[in-house]
């Protein structure tokens, strides 16, 4: 193995090791959020896709009970909308 090749191999191994740690840290932070139903304005929901599917930005009415958003953990049920409080479970519309 040439020096250059060895350097490349070490750089790749190093990048993997750092990236794994960074990803774990970021994932742990994301886990602190919770899915909150019934608090999303129309077209502002977080899930995603296209016609005929449930998808980010496709909820048809404000505070639709089946649409959810990520909110900081512990805050969901404290959110009050004109239609009632946020819920950790899907709500009837």
């Amino acid at each position, binding site marked *: 193995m040439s020096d250059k090749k060895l350097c490349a191999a070490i750089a790749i191994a190093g990048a993997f090791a750092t990236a794994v740690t960074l990803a*774990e840290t970021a994932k742990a932070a994301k886990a602190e959020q919770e899915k909150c139903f019934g608090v999303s304005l129309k077209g502002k929901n977080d899930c*995603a896709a296209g016609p005929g599917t449930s998808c980010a930005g*496709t909820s048809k009415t404000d505070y639709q009970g089946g649409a959810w958003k990520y909110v900081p953990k512990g805050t969901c049920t404290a959110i009050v909308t004109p239609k009632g409080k946020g819920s950790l479970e899907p709500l009837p519309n």
Partner: protein
Amino acid sequence: MSAPADFDQGAFVRALLDPELPPPNGLETPRGFSPEKRFAVYRNNVCVGLVDALSERFPVCRQLVGEEFFQAMAHCYMREFLPRTPMLFEYGEGFATFVSQFEPARELPYLSDVARLEYALGQAYHAEDAAPLTIGSVRALPPDRLENATATLHPSTHVIASKYPIVSIWRQHMSDEEMTPLDLNRGEEALVVRPELEIRVSTLPAGGVVFVDALKERQTFGEAVDAASGATAAFDLTVCLRELLLAEAFVAISVAH
């Protein structure tokens, strides 16, 4: 329902797309209903259905140009490109290219790339399922073999490089975040993956799209790094891997023996 032997599909389609043309020959309608009127209803349903499908498929493009403009543009597209398969989720494949050549949209040079991103979201949604590799199993890979390892990416993985900040534009229009002025000269490289039920959209560092495309071609990590560094001297492998891991884009990483 079967078509008569002398059914001319070409003539039917032409009549479908051009309200000036008479309805195709051989139409049978219930007594008292004129074929012209009945066919006009059918024509309208087809057009509205396809324009609506595009409208749902490209919601941010629609916001960027406004409802009226989008409807007109979608109608022009539909007149030129009818679905090529019975699957509506595949409709709009050439929409981004069409938009890039659509004269009235010239002032929004990023519109076409946003359309590419939105089409990729739909494709990712309908892509085959696969279990993503856990971060723990990536950590367990032998470090000295990674350079010659190859990756299997999640079937839903799409990458789009743009000269414009397409991910920021898309995100601002899809979220509650306040609109902030964007530097339109700052390009972004988008990564789209749907590891489970939710689509993830993230930004890769410069060169990331070249890197992912190389991995998709089964090049080794070493070769993919060379390709990306060749495209952009500033290619940041660590950031690129972090984004791919967070998006859960890897299904397998095979180390050479």
